[in-house]
């Protein structure tokens, strides 16, 4: 059985497409449309292996959501998938014990790269 991937994006069709692709790669996927929802799902016991997180979200931003999920589920690994350009948030994240995260910029031409990274992170963990 493949890794459980939580996809967090307020853009529904981004979630759909990413989930479809990763499922085709034999992974299990869950989606959340806000940081709060993602944190709640993990709090409720979702055993996330890898979380693909958008940065710009309504409510708490992706970086904050990552920190909160990390607190609840230290086993979880993170991938950033963002359309924004500021790397200030990422630089701040890198200073926490979450560390430096793999980043994929939207639009992502080839999702193979993201699925390979998910698999690599999962295998390493």
């Amino acid at each position, binding site marked *: 059985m493949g890794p459980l991937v939580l996809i967090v994006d307020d853009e529904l069709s981004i979630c759909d497409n990413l989930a479809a692709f990763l499922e085709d790669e034999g992974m299990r996927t869950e989606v959340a449309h806000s940081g709060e929802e993602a944190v709640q799902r993990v709090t409720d016991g979702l055993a996330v292996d890898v979380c693909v997180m958008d940065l710009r979200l309504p409510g708490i931003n992706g970086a904050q959501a990552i920190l909160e999920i990390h607190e609840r589920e230290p086993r979880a690994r993170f991938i950033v998938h963002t*359309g924004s350009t500021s790397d200030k948030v990422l630089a701040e994240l890198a200073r926490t014990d979450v560390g430096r995260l793999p980043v994929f910029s939207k639009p992502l031409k080839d999702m193979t790269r993201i699925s390979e990274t998910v698999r690599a992170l999962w295998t390493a963990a």
Partner: protein
Amino acid sequence: MDCLVNKSKSSRSWTDDPLVHSIVENVADGVVGIGTDGYIELFNRVAERLFGYQAGEVLGRNVRMLMPTDYSRDHDEHLRRYGETGARHIIGIGREVVGRRKDGSTFPMYLSVGEVSQPGFDGFIGIVHDLSSQKAAERELAEAGDLLQSILDSMPSTVVGVDADGRVTHWNRGARSESGLDAAQAMGRAFADIFPFLRLGSADIVRAVHEGKPLRKERVPIPGDGGTRYLDLMLYPLCHPSSGAVIRTDDVTERVRIEEMMVQTEKMMSVGGLAAGMAHEINNPLGTVAQGCQNLERRLSGDLAENLRVADELGLDLDRMREYLSRRGIPRFVEGMREATERASRIVSDMLAYSRRSTSSFVPVRLNQLIDTALRLAGHDYDLKKSYDFRRIEIVREGTDSPDEVLCDEMAVEQVLLNLLRNASQAMCTHPPTPSARIQLGVYDEGDWVRLGVADNGPGMSEEVARRLFEPFFTTKPVGIGTGLGLSVAYFIVTEQHRGTISVETSPGQGTRFLIRLPRRGKPYGPAGADRR
């Protein structure tokens, strides 16, 4: 009357004649008589006033006392020579000389000398006409003229006075450098003939003078080797009616350029400001389309286990379905969508170059090494391969191989160079392709500045295109090839971020040369940077 003549010399003289006496005493000019030996024998009242001597003080003394040293030195010699040879220097002719007063001061005078040989007087009579006030007036006039000329010359403008027919009457230094003619060559010629490029005909001038109305022409373009210059022209009829006009032209090229540049910069600033905000909003939907395309392709044509399972479940022959899709052109549509997404994403990332550039770091860079890198990148560039085989372009390196380093944002300048190389090679592949295509690159030392030249022998461009070259979203490339942002980003990087200059020299069929000047010790400066002017 006793003061008039040196009585000691003669007992009876022609000057005793009351008429002669009266004439000599009452003429308006000074009269001085000397003997052949040069000693004064006659000195009238006006002479007394002019020289400040009483007759009694000069009679019987050498006339040299009335001359400044440089005249008096040779006077005896002149007299002696005249006595021997009869060679006339002044006698019967008269000329302008300088007189010396009793107080040692001098004054200009016109001296006419006549020879007199009468019983009781053998010598010369000099008529002294004071030129002081005339000379002063002349000097004043000349000074006024000099002052006027100096006023005209000190102005950086071209200032030309013309008469009512439009013919040159005054000519200043600016006019000389504008026309290449000096005042002597220009005087009297028609203004319209000297400056045909100003398109101000003699008829225009005559009419303006006649109507007493000023005339103004702004930004008259003057084509030249170094690019087009612009002149503002003003014609003011003189206050005195129908006496002519003064025409002034000013070179406003710099101002026109700066204004154009400001418009340009403003446009780009707005693009930069928009870009950051827009990027996120555009990238998300673009992501959906790009990822949707990939999923479509994989699920329609890929051999995924899930594809086979679902098809099997439905009893669907995948090969027949793909045959159908192919015959209906579906994969082509999907491919088109994907390419469009890539294009849009390229535009967004080019626009982002504006906002990203503000946080750059300057490091010492050897421009020649930077050129090497850019050339290497250009050789691998996908776009370049698509449009032109970069390796078939001859690369010529010029300029100095200066080891000096320039403080700049290495990545940014590299981006500028790559952009120029890409444009040059794309231009040279347009139909018909440039035979023996060549790009010349050079670094030139200019003291505190470094000049970087990138020149190609491609098709060049029209003035219209060259003028809009740095404008955001202006492109001459086919749809999908250029975003119209490459050169405006280059412009932004050079002028805003590096406080340098970038310019282009080109004309149709003559190739294109870009010149970039960078300050050697540049400091980062961007729209969002702390270091604002």
